[in-house]
């Protein structure tokens, strides 16, 4: 298991939620693959993403966003910004709920966690842009 992971989220059957899946396809076709970075398909997992986050130093989530950017623009969110969207527990409890609970679930220090996202149905330029930004952050962090 690598210290860094890019975890792609989404539903490839819903165009507006397929960004993570399309970025996963893009990144896993690149050759040679970046050393020391796991590229993972997180599907629609919620709390079950915890096992993919544990014992990492850096995690970059890739997912579609809604209401946070102009259509086609790319955004980068911190763990705290994502966690701020956590509501009550439900069967669809997802990434915000997990990241809100993470300090209580995970031994300190927490991994550096960011989310790279974009809004709208992803096209080829958007997929490439998000993929490249995700890998840049995975290698160098956000600093």
């Amino acid at each position, binding site marked *: 298991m690598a210290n860094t992971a890019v975890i792609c*989220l989404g539903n490839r059957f819903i165009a*507006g*939620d397929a960004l993570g899946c399309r970025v996963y396809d893009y990144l896993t076709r690149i050759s040679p693959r970046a050393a020391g970075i796991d590229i993972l398909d997180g*599907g*629609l*997992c*919620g*709390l*079950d993403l*915890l*096992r993919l986050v544990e014992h990492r130093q850096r995690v970059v*989530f890739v*997912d*579609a*966003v*809604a*209401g*946070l950017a102009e259509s086609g623009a790319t955004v980068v*969110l911190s763990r705290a*910004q*994502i966690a701020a*969207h*956590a509501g*009550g*527990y*439900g*069967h*669809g409890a*997802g*990434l*915000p*709920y997990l990241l*809100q*609970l993470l300090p*209580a*679930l995970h031994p300190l220090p927490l991994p550096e966690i960011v*989310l790279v*996202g974009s809004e709208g149905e992803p096209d080829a330029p958007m997929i490439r842009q998000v993929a490249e930004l995700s890998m840049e952050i995975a290698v160098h962090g956000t600093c």
Partner: protein
Amino acid sequence: MTRRIIRDLPLNRVEGDLEIRVELEDNRVVDAWSSGTMFRGFENLMVGRGALDGLVITPRICGICSTTHLMAAACALDQIAGVRPPGNALRLRNLTLMVENCQSDLRQSVLMYMPDFATPAHAAHPLHAAAVKRYAPLAGERCIDVVRETRKLLEIIAILGGQWPHSSFMVPGGVTYIPNLAELNQCRGLLQHFRRWYEQQVLGCSLERWQAVRSVSDLDAWLEENDAQRDSDVGFFLRFSRGAGLIGQGRGHGHFLSYGSLDIPSGSAVTGGEDRYLVPAGFRTADGRIEPFDQSRVAEHVASSWYEGVGGRHPFDGETVPLATGADGKKYSWSKAPRYAGLPAETGPLAERVVGGDALFGDLLRCYGPDLVSRQLARLVRPATLLPAMETWLDELLAQRDQPFYETVPPLQQGRGFGLIEAARGALGHWVEIRDGKIARYQIVTPTAWNGSPRDDAGVRGPWEEALIGLHVADIDNPVEAGHVVRSFDPCLVCTVHVVGADTTPLRC
């Protein structure tokens, strides 16, 4: 002066899109309507697809009980294929379904139900401060613990089924993967860890000690026996419920339904009822008679549902044709109204225990009626009834791994079949018809359709509509009492209602 008003109740932490409207007279509920407010259309989406597509699509109905839908879909196709899967396939299927039910029972109890104890509405309760510490949403220490432990338990499904949720490892004739010895031993370790945690934290005693509780007086004695039991989740739940006056609240019609579940393989050391299921099938009438279950007596009504059609139809004759009109004022839900022998029926862990003749829950019903405390208690302690069989089936898999996990079946061209199981929330059925290798009809009746159904053709309320009648609501702007009642049924509207607008687009960031 009597004051009658009609109010829509704000209920959070209910899974899916649910609206409850009640008519109150001097703060007491005199009528109730339950409305599933989102159409999903999975059944129609299936028609015309390949015979096996239900194995991939129906687990996507819900992220918390996807193994459950997979199991029902696979059982329906087993029947069409005319095959009973080999013993190891049954063990592996059962084990994963039981894991999913255990995680759901604990997450529902600790993350969805018990947080109501931490609301300001219970501020005067002597245990309120402790409830906040234990069960406050996103912060309660027991909430954190349950997330951590149920996540570990689910690794069993990921090991045996490739992933959780939304796996498709069950197929007609068996399962697609034979786990190796290391994987089975890893599952054994995960199960042992979960059992130890469940005994220490949730029960406060061994499974054997809990199973010796067979009456209300036994339960009272158990509660006073030691601090570990009093402070466990079960002990705290009972003490808080009694102090809050919840005993006897939220009674339904008193009819209970179990489809039966967990087919016991030939030669297994696990023993069950006469019908070869670990969880027996049956229908219990309000006067206490238990009748054999007959799936031909299931029908779905749509008089109060936004669908075309008249009369109650058996699922093999069922249609799902949306009719989104409120013109006549009678239709108010996207959920259909399932009925058994023409009667509404409560389903879920309490129904399983009552139909199975469990001594403790039989006594609770005699003393307090089919109330919300018994309903929720049955859910919280269901893992105690499942864990011994889970361990036995894992041991048998380890000992007999060289035996078959799959029996070849020919391509499915024609036929009808049903897969009936007990999901976390109760009776789940998939009725499937295949013609020329394609799905010609697919009807799904979920547990929440049973429990949260609207009125039927005769105008009879669904189970939780009925359970709300007579309830006293102190503050109609914070109807915590109604929350207790509805949540005790463990509603999952996302499974039940049959493209979501911009305002409800899931926002994961």
